[in-house]
């Protein structure tokens, strides 16, 4: 079982700002270092609702909510996921807290 899940939002705003390309690039970077997805899996997510601060990317179960992510930010994010680097702080905290809570609530199933 993989340890982490990375979700790239593919809601309308995120898509218009290039989340499709961002997803592909993220997957490429992760698979280059973790070809079996043993540590991290990357998936698309229909919409987080943080549209004002697109493109949004989340990391679960670490509960990191990245916003306004660009392709240039991805190597740093990947370094946190697969290396020793800390989360990329400058990309966190932009989304409304209730949006973030909703996402973790959906993923934190008691069942």
């Amino acid at each position: 079982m993989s340890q982490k899940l990375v979700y790239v939002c593919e809601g309308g705003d995120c898509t218009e700002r290039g989340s499709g390309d961002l997803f592909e690039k993220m997957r490429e970077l992760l698979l280059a270092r973790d070809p079996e997805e043993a540590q991290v899996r990357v998936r698309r997510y229909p919409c987080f609702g943080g549209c004002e601060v697109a493109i949004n990317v989340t990391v679960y179960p670490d509960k990191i909510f990245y916003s306004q992510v660009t392709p240039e930010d991805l190597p740093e994010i990947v370094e946190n996921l697969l290396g020793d680097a800390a989360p990329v702080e400058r990309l966190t905290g932009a989304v409304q807290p209730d949006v973030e809570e909703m996402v973790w609530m959906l993923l934190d199933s008691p069942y």
Partner: protein
Amino acid sequence: MSQVDLEARIPNNVGLREDKRLLRALEKWQPAFIDWWKDTGPSDFNADQIYLRTAIGVGKGGWAHFDYVKMPDYRWGIFLADPVVDRKIHFGDHIGESIWNDVPGEMRNRLRRLIVTQGDTEPASVEQQRLLGHTAPSLYDMRSLFQVNAEEGRHLWAMVYLLHSYFGADGRDEADALLERRSGDEDSPRILEAFNKPITTWLDFFCFTTFTDRDGKYQLAALAESSFDPLARTTQFMLTEEAYHMQTGENGVGRIIHRCAELMHAGEDPRKVGAIPLDIVQRYINEWASASMDLFGGEDSTNAAESFASGLKGRYREGDGIYKDPKALEHSYKAEVPEGDHMVEKEIPLRRAMNALLLDSYVADCQRIVSRWNRDLERQQIDFRIVLPSKRFNRHQGIYSSACFTPQGELVDAEAWNSQREVWLPSQADRDYVESCMVAVREPGKFANWISPPPRGVNDQPLDFEFVKFH
């Protein structure tokens, strides 16, 4: 990445050229679909050029090709997400077994019913919305409506492909019946009640795309987990398109609220200038949110348990491995249910509570949207707050349907409920007023007075872009 055949009469990535029998069957169904579209799709705009997004592939950006097209010439195609190599069943009784590329005999009827029920909603919504183009508040919104309609038509194609491919003569009959039923028809209505209500105003349309299409998101997400791989791959791709529909609704209601708040902030009475007051918006939200919650079905459901156990329908994002118990045998779901004049706690075995779990995910998503609208009201210094009605309010399906509840979820008697009905749900006067606001605006870049412009046009076009070119 699968090969997309864009030159075929029916664009597809399912190798239709190699399956002559299926190709012939679908090519026979195609003219009936076009006739249905012309008869019951958007009225009077079939000769106009619409700036539409057309799916041309399943890879990155493949579904986001924009160009002008006359709606009957839209290239409705059949697209499945690419298969996952060696995918195994990941929930229910068959966990660990290989996924199915054909329908197991014993699941045939259940699976067909799931596909037909989902498929029936697609043409139904197009029928419900067929007259809205005439009162579009802008060319931008008119384009959005037709985009949603065209993509619901494509989703119908997706379900019809499954029926034709995997269910033989029965499937073909069901595919024909999808074009025969009509939204609101007394003799041959659509299957689900929310899809038989006419959508006559844009406030209804935006509420529908916010709340009812969002039910679709969760149903499709549950089917995207299916052990029947063609269904899982079909619905995965549909979800990509559905995101646009939900955003159309969320932004649409948000723009109505924004416009009203803007006028109130400026000291104007929204009613005197043809805008829609917030209390009316709230009543429409109460109506559409509660009707959409009914679409999830009973919270305690043996049907839902069997669909989960047999691997046909999973929980939201089941495949991501976020659930502790993939067989759902070890837990129960606690719900407060009415018993006489009070509420009692009931434990529902988890498998039987699959609809309730999916509904809870939906409610959290809706709450997030309402919070977004309220942040805008706060920014504009307006005291009014939109409230998402309790999942107990105005229910006609499930464990709350036998009693009356306020929008806050308090149990009340029928007399008390009826006395407040027009405070909580739209009255005829509300409907008449909203209808009176619906005036067509067709000048590029202009918007009706009851709705704010969006921040930008679709596909990064300017707001005064000619999204619809009239013939």
